[in-house]
């Protein structure tokens, strides 16, 4: 099982038989975890929460890295670089401003 997965990953040029059902499975479970965790977030912190989840969803950067850095045609890689820049901006500004805001919340 693991061997076959590794084989498909190692040769990305081959048509990949992706197990979309397991992806869907992950999506549904992650959504439920998200709903459970977010529901408990302090109501004081909704603004920083939004900038934090924003930064986290900029994990899309890993997709952009592949598109930019793999052996693809030039135009594709340019598009990838722009996407990479956009995600990177979100990561940097998202985490920094979240921390900046959270620092301000003091009990006394």
């Amino acid at each position, binding site marked *: 099982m693991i061997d076959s997965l590794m084989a498909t990953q190692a040769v990305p040029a081959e048509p990949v038989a992706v197990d979309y059902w397991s992806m869907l499975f992950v999506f549904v479970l992650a959504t439920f975890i998200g709903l459970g965790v977010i529901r408990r977030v302090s109501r004081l912190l909704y603004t920083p929460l939004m900038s934090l989840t924003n930064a*986290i969803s900029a994990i899309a950067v890993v997709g952009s890295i592949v598109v930019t850095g793999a052996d693809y045609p030039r135009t594709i890689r340019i598009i990838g670089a722009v996407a990479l820049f956009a995600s990177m901006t979100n990561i940097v500004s*998202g985490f920094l401003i979240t921390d900046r805001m959270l620092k301000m919340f003091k009990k006394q």
Partner: protein
Amino acid sequence: MMYAVAQFAAVFATALFIFSLYWMNDPKTARRGVVAGVTGMLVAVVATWVQPQIIHHGWIVVAIVAGFIVGVPLSQVPLTAVPQRTALSHAFGGLAAGLVGTAEYFLGLGENPAELTAFRMSAIVAEVILGFLTFTGSLMAAGKLQEVKWIPQRPVTYPGQNVVNIGVLVVAVGLGVVVVLHPTAPWSGHAFYVIVGLAVLFGVLLIIPIGGADMPTVISILNSYAGLSAVAMGFVLNNKLLVTAGALDGSSGLILSIIMCRAMNRSFTNVLFGAFGTVQKTAAIGEQKEWKQETVEGAAQLLEQASLVVIIPGYGMAVAQAQHKVRELYDQLTKRGITVKFAIHPVAGRMPGHMNVLLAEANIPYTALVEMDEINPEMPQCDVALVIGANDVVNPAARYKKDTPIYGMPIIDADKARAVLAIKRSKNPGFAGIDNELYVLDNTWMLFGDAKAVIGEVVKQLAGGGGLH
């Protein structure tokens, strides 16, 4: 080996992201959440970068450096500008998703058409539509929040608007279905561009009819879309980490949207297609009552004699940058042994939690910030309710007047306090364009002027008069 490294990194990053959000349940642990998030991100990026298929590094470095150059200043904006920064980051998220989807489609078209299976094509189309509509929609929202000149602040409506909007989306999705069925036909590439164009257009059309008071909900919905476009990207790239992180972001946006909608007693569709915030030209209410104006001295005296003061801040406080003066007022009052609480309505301001952040910036302890549901039972014991730049969220008409757009919206019961002091910039109605009955109640006194200036004057009075006691 490298594959195992990548997979392990993804699992590790997922766990860290979940912890990151979990720690946000308390301001005490919240900063740990940022550390966890940054660590997860770093691990995931490095593990991806070292993969053998990444052979060109130059552009990656350039894009990352550019991201820092733009991202660092964006994180230093004044806190009153946080809503537009947030909208802008949703726009970036949508753009990244839309671009990667486009790249993946043309990559498949040019190099490996067999990869464009129906499932993968569906994910690409979903990613591109969601990504680009989030991109332009969020840009429009950011523009409205920043009050950019050529973007109208007031909602723009025209007859048949909803038909046009839904029509554009339906055509885009319909064309998407066609491209999914025929991904490699000679015309498919062009059809794909049309889908992109329609998504871009739909994003703009979606935000044009939305007014300032709806921004907290709209930002939350766009947050959700940005997350979902990341999920779609995960499906396209066969990346479970992306699916997970996107789902966390999407569910966060969803919960916030639901909370915002509930706080306004409205549905999603009503927010998106209802064009709230157009000035209602309802016939003037039978008897036009007059407001009673109060002097700064009188207000200071009233506050001084209170034992419980509830301050109700709204967007007007943010606009006037009055939070630091509010802090001085808080100090003056607490020094006299007066209990001061802040009543926070969920939709006060322009994004979820906006007021909390502004007050925290002014060093007001978060223990003094109280949610609407908790403060309302206390309002009858409140001696003075001080309304600073809030309007619709304290309008008693929401309880019974069925013809106002705010009917049914839960409000902070300022009118139940023994006395109400309301600071207002002008005598114009609020964002929803409705007269506020609170201002003409028998126990209400108005202070007209810029919130910062008025509170500054009150503080001066309190500080000056303090010595006499």
